[in-house]
Structures are given as C-alpha cells and as structure tokens.
C-alpha cells in the first residue's frame, strides 16, 4: 500500500487527514514543519506528499521546490485555500491542487489519480 506524507501546521488537520486517509488504506506520516518533513523523507520513501501552502512561518512552496529538485519522482498535491497558490507561480509545479474542504472526497480522488499516473509512468519506463 502506498505511503503518504501529509504536511500541515494545524494539528487537527493532520489528525483528520491521517484518520481519513488511513481508512482508505494508505500508510500516513505527518509533519508540521519543513524540517520535520525533510527528516521524515530521509527516513522513509514516500509515494506522494500532500502539502499545505501556508505553514505558520514557512511556505509549502519552498518544500515543493525542494521535492521537485531532489525527489522529482515523488508527486505532490497542494492543499490550501483557493487563491493562495496564485501568489507564487512555483505552485504550478505541483501535480495537483485541491481546495481545502471538510469533504475529503476530492482529495482522495486526486491521490488515487496521481498515484495511478505515477504507476503508469513507471510502467512505461520499464
């Protein structure tokens, strides 16, 4: 089963994602800061990351750039309030963008779609 990394500065949101995505059968790790996320990425290999854009004093875009540069085979889904991503065009580097909502259906569908696309790309490379 795929391993996901959820990065959000809100503890309750991390908990919600963790619960809901675990229910979907994913192994979910969470991080509150970029440093924590980087540390976890060093310890485990993740199939996908779900990033919030606004992380207290940090920017999820910074982490996105780091992932694209160093782990470009790891897809990223940005999850934030609508419009924020337009402030930084680097957000366009993400594989998908989902508007934060209490209804996680869209996020779950996007995770499935992005992972399937990744698998397809891998298959074609082999």
């Amino acid at each position, binding site marked *: 089963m795929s391993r996901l990394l959820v990065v959000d500065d809100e503890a*309750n*949101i991390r908990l*919600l994602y963790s619960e809901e995505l675990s229910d979907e059968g994913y192994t979910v790790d969470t991080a509150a800061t970029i440093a924590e996320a980087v540390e976890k990425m060093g310890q485990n290999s993740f199939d996908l990351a779900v990033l919030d854009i606004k992380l207290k004093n940090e920017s999820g875009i910074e982490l996105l750039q780091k992932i694209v540069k160093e782990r470009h085979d790891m897809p990223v889904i940005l999850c934030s309030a*609508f*419009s924020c991503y337009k402030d930084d065009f680097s957000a*366009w580097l993400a594989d998908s963008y989902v508007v934060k909502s209490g209804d996680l259906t869209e996020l779950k569908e996007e995770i499935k779609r992005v992972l399937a696309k990744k698998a397809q790309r891998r298959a074609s490379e082999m």
Partner: protein
Amino acid sequence: MGNGTEIDWERCWDKESLSGGECPFIGAEDAELLGSRSRRFLQKCCECERFKRDIRSFADTGHPLATAFSVLQTECSRQKAQIETLANFLDTKTLEMRFMHELGSVLQSSVDLDEVLSIALTAITAGKGFGMNRAFLLLADRERHLLKGHLAIGPRDAEEAGQTWKEIDSGDQDLQALSQSFRYKKLNSERYKFQDILEKLVISLDDTQHIIMRALDEHKSILVTDAFHRQDLDREFAALLGVDTFLVLPLITRNRRVGAIIADNFITHRPITEQDMRSIETFTFPVAFAIERASLYERVQEEVDKLRQANIRLQEQQEQLVRMEKMALVGRITSSIAHSIRNPLMVIGGFARSILKSTAENDLKRSFIESIVNETRQMEEVLQEILTYSEAMYPTSDFWDPNQLVESALRDIQDRALSQDYRCQFHPADNIPTVFIDFKQTEYCIRNIIISSIDGLQNGIIDISTSLNHDYVDVRIVDKNRILSEDELEAMLTPFTEVREMGSGLNMALSRSMLEKQNISLLVVAPPEGGVTYTIKLPTRKEENHEQTARS
C-alpha cells in the same frame, strides 16, 4: 613764345558763374555747379572737350607751364576715375552689407529648418540677393555618413526662367517675403521638380576626392570652371549639373560638416567671378549655423514629444499600478480572512463526516451530526464565493508596454546576473504598441527564461530585444553561450525534467505552460552550431475570450 591773346580760348571754364544752358554738360540736376567755378571745374571741365582743346592750344604755345599743366590735368582725370570706381565699389559693398544684415536678422529669428533652407536658397537666387540662377542644397546625414541632395531652387529652362523672374520683378518683395512665399508655395514643388538631380546628389562623407568633400575638408569655397574637361572632377557630376561653371560653398559650424550649396548660372551663363564667390562665401557661416540650430531644435522637439508621450504612458501605468495595488490588497485581506476561517471549518466538517460514517443509521444523534456536515458545507460554499470574488479583484490581462515589461524583468535579475559576470543587453524597439498580457505572469516567465539560461554558467552575454511582428510584439532572448542537442531541447520543455545544470526546479516547461494559458506562444530554437533563441509572441490586440482563457 606766344601769349593768351594769340589763342582762340573757349574760356567758358574760367567764368565765375554761368547762366543755365550755357554749358551743355550741366543739366538741371547739377544746377548748383553753375555758380561755383572750382566745383564745376573739377567735376565737369576736366572731362570737357572744350577745356581739353584749350589745354592743347596752350601746349602749342610752348609756354613752360603748359607741360606741367597737361600732366596735372591727366592725373586729375585718372584720380577722378579711381574715386568713381571706389565709390561704386563702396555702394556695392553697402548694398551687400545691408543684404547680409537683413539675411542675418531673418536667419536668426528662425528655428524652423524648412524656413531656414528657404531663406538660404532664396538669398542665393534672388536678384536682390546674390542673383545666381540655381542653387542646390545638400545636407549631411551623419547616421548614414552621407551628403545628400535635399532641396533646390531655380528654373529648369529659359521659358520658366523668364516667367519666374517676371513674377518676382512685378512684386517689390523683401528677402523675408520672398523666402516665405517660396516656403509655402514652392518648397515641395521645387523639390519634386529637381527630384531627378537631388536623388543623384549622394556623396559619401569619406570620398575625399569629390569636389564637394574637398570644399568641406579644406573649409573653403571653390569656383569650378571648365567642369567638363577638368581631370579632378567627376564627369558624371558635371553632366548631372549640366553647367561648366559653378560654385561649391561648404556649410560648416564648429568643424561639423552641416552640408554644402552648389550655385550656378544655368540659364544666363553669366560668368561667376572670384568677387561673386567671396560675396556669397560670407553668408555661408550664418546659414550653416542656422541650419545646425534648426536641426538641433527639430531633434530637441522630437525628444520633447517622445518624453511627453512617455510621461503620459507613465502616468497611465502609475494609475493602473495604484488601482492594481488597491485591488490586490483587498484580495489579499479577503483571502487571508477566508484562509483563517477555512481551516477550523474544514476540521469541524471533516471530523463530523468521520463521525457520521461510524454512526449507526438508527442513532438518534445522527441527525445532529448531519446538520453539522450540512451547515459546514454551506459555510464552505459561502466562503468559496467570497474567495472567488476576491480572486476576481486581482487584475489580470491588460495593455502594457513590452519594453517596460522586459526592463522590469531585467531589474529583478540584475544582481544575480552581475554575480555571475553575465551581461543582459536589451535592445528595445522604438514606437512599438502596447501588448495585452498579464504583466506579472509574463514578467515572471521572462525572468525564469533568463535565470534558466544563466544558471550554472559564468561570464556570458544574453541579448534581449523587442520588435513588432504584424499583430505581435516579439520578445527575443538570445543565449549565445549554451549548446543544446535536440533531445536536450525536448527535455527542457518537458515538465520535471532537468537539463545539464539548467533545472533549478522552476523550469522552462512551467514558463511555457503559464504563457500558453494566456494564449502566448513560446518558441525555442537551438541550432546545432550553438546558441538558444527564445521568442515570446505577445499579442497587441485583445482577442475574444482571451481574458477568460488567461484566467482559467
């Protein structure tokens, strides 16, 4: 030895006074001479045949004073003739000075190039001026390093000459009136009339052997005679003018070659003398100075107009920026508030949904949880509307100056380029129209392309230019230092693919994708011999649905 009584004297010259009609050489206009013997004697008698006869008769007497008297009389006549010549010369010079004064006053009062040229050519050809038949004016084109025929004046044949001179004679006009008449009635027609000659009067400023360039280099006028047979003169040039005698007058100010004037007597063939040349020569400096001043004034006016236009554009764009900033601020505040509300709302709604999933269908509290889910969904919808509205307040596409766009992008990367010893040379096109773009996004893309080009390299040059290409303004970025293979070029434009030190995470694919969303194409050419050229085609027109596409 004889005496006075033996000579048959006329002796009219000896009378103290004469009555009217007594002397045939004194008319009514010289009546005052009748009463003054000394004046009459000096002015009239010395030349009079009667007096001369008396002198001869006196000489025949062998009187010792007769020879001396004869010598004195001859010398007196000679000096009188000399005085008359000098008086005539003085008159001519006085007229010339008056004319030069008039010319100087008229030239000094004008900063209009056409007016100055009209005055100069009219002065050379007018009968009240230097009275030459024709004059050609050549002006220096410093950019092309040429001397070119600019304007001419004069008749093309005897018939036209007769008619023109008759018209001029019939009206008693001064130089200013004549030149004004030429400027408003004949300037263009004369230019058209002499077009065949003027367009062939093109001389390189480096052609030191040409007669006109010699006059300019040596700072002196040249009177050319026997033009058709001179070895030092281009035969074609003489044939073009159609005369064997003409004047070449250099126009020079402070060692700057302003132009030259060629003047001739094509119709009357009146010989041109050294004296003519010296007279006209004195007027070339004020003419050259006036032309130079008028040209500079014209250029200053052009620059003032450009500045005025630029100022208007700047004001418009400043207003636009202020509007944009205000709207962006409203958008940011709204967005920030919405973001703060959305997180707790999401947690409430999300956990409510989780609880709902694990709540039995017959659980009495299920309806409460359903209410929480529905209410939070409704609140999220309202929030979405607010965010969509605030998003709409961000300005997107508008008309912008493409040169300003590039300059803005270059300003942002200036420090980075300097730190890598890179020079970004911008060649903006003049007078290009505005383009319909999202300034922020397009500027970001230009910046991204330049950063990607210089990334990982040291000491190079990036050439950036703007040019109008039909309905588009092309922004061309030329990176001469990089060599890309076909595969590398393709990889560069593919998302998430790195190309030898070029991928800094913000790759070219992102720029292309962003530009495509605005319907702007990005063309990349990398020939095998090296260099990469990026061409961004910015639309000068607002296409239908363009704005929607740009925002989608």
